[in-house]
């Protein structure tokens, strides 16, 4: 067996290397095939969706159908307005989490104070709490407060997704920041608030961007909250996509595929933008890339 050093940047041409390359490629075929296949399926017409596998005449009409009124008739869901709701709710939830979470993350990253660890733990436990435990009471409360099936209601409940992410990621960034920088600013006569805004905040900007985009992505990908806490007014994209498959009568595989791709596109694009900071965000600051 060929010996090789496992450190980064090591290359060696050998039988083992070729085998490893083959396995790598096989993995990526498995990982990417479903997305490629959805794209192909989304380009087929109603006849070819069930009659052919790879040979077909591509057409864009499925995307127009999904976004248009015909898709709405089939699924009783207006996909365009679902996209709008998703954007508003996820951006809103992320914004609230940032405004509220940045000070808390700064406090937890800078000082050790009584209760800070339990606040952080409480945040994290939300991330791992079974969603239905909260949804069932909210289902009752939302009807009472008229928040059921509203974007505001979604923003509230999505804090469960976005808040822990923002606070934990940014705490790790603030911990990384040398306190001497702020001390220098304070000695120069800056107030603490000004030191925070002019020194600390700009330095953690990559962290804020990563946390915000990840929060948006995970809020976008959430399903169980909008499934139960919204109806036709504030349906989100994830819920809308599943409706294409659920409709009785004829199955619209091609429309489902088109809707799925439309729903998947925003997170994919955003994720590629923050790839460098992704690992740290995904691990809540535990693993640095």
């Amino acid at each position, binding site marked *: 067996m060929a*010996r*090789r*050093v*496992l*450190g980064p940047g090591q*290359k060696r041409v050998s039988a083992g290397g070729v085998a490893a*390359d083959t396995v*790598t490629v096989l*993995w*990526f075929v*498995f*990982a990417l095939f*479903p997305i490629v296949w*959805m794209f192909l399926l989304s380009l087929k017409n109603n006849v070819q*969706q*069930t009659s052919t*596998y790879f040979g077909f005449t591509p057409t864009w009409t499925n995307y127009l159908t999904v976004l248009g009124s015909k898709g709405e008739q089939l699924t009783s869901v207006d996909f365009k307005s679902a996209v709008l709701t998703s954007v508003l709710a996820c951006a809103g939830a992320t914004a609230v989490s940032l405004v*509220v*979470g940045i000070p808390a993350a*700064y*406090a*937890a990253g*800078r000082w*050790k*104070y009584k209760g800070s660890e339990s*606040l*952080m*733990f409480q945040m994290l436990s939300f991330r*791992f709490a*079974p*969603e*239905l*435990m*909260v949804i*069932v*009471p909210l289902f*009752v*409360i939302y009807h009472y407060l008229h928040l059921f099936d509203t974007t505001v209601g979604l923003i509230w409940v999505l*804090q469960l997704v976005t*808040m822990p992410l923002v606070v934990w990621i940014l705490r*790790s960034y603030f*911990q990384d920041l040398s306190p001497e920088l*702020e001390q220098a600013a*304070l000695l120069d006569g800056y107030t*603490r608030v000004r030191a925070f805004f002019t020194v600390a905040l700009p330095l953690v900007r990559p962290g804020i961007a990563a946390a915000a985009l990840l929060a948006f992505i995970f809020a976008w*990908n*959430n*399903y169980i909250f909008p*499934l*139960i806490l919204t109806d036709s007014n504030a349906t989100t994209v994830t819920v809308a*996509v599943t409706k294409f498959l659920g409709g009785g009568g004829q199955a619209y595989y091609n429309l489902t595929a088109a809707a799925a791709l439309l729903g998947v596109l925003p*997170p994919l694009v955003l*994720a590629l933008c923050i790839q460098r900071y*992704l*690992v740290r965000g*995904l691990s*809540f600051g*535990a*693993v640095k*890339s």
Partner: protein
Amino acid sequence: MSALSDETAAPPSVPAWRRGIRPYLLSIPALAVVVGILYPFLSGAWYSLLDYSAGNTHVKSVWFANFADVLGDPGLWRSVGVTIEYALLATVVETVLGVGVALLLNRSTLIGRVLEKVLILPLMVAPVIAATMWKLMFDTNFGILNHVLGLGHTYNWLSKDHALFSAVLVDVWVYTPFVAVLVLAGIRSLPREPFEASDVDGASWWYMFRRLMLPMMYPYILVAVIFRLMDCLKIFDIIYALTAGGPGTVTTTLQINAFEDSIIHFDYSRGSTYMFLLWVLVFVAARFLVGVLTKAQKRAAGTEG
């Protein structure tokens, strides 16, 4: 870790007591949101002590009758079994594959570097959409999988015998990149000297992997495993979109079961009881996780070791 020593940090004009409450003031908004979430959460725990359902107008406390009822129900234990089977299976497969993919990509060949750019794509697909996509591919008559794998029109991926494995397959597709990116980042942060030294000493690849890399990667793998395990215990969206718990009850996990009780049958108390039991399970695991995470975070921040 008290990062700022207060004597030098704060101007003398700020009295000590104000410096003391500063972190609390900063945490108030977050605390308010926590309370906003905690309230329904505690209501949920309270519901599990009531006989609350949509049809019941005289809600009264029944203390632990729900727990006795639910714990004596074979349906609960069935779904506990399904949940644990799903969680263990998915976590083990994802960890093994994820570590494998990370090792492959760590070779940094040209192919690897190109493909690494798209490694996280499946992870960014909403699990429910992933399940929908796979459901199209699983289709017995028109699905691509039976065609490509040469299984004809007879193999039913979502039948009684295969449904759970198919759901795990979707989970593996979505979340293996999660393990892989974490472990890959971990491997790359390891010091290179020990590996070079053992290479010079003529150690085999397997020996180096077992004796050097695995122990050094352990914290990263552990973080990934715990995240996966705890997410799997409350799995809902993949299964709901794929099988909705069926056929029969072969894929009915705890959250699917609670969903049926409280949302479909409007028995809020029964559903809450299920969730309370699951929450206890997750809470214990979360306590453990925080210790591991905090330690790993400190290591990442360079304040320890």
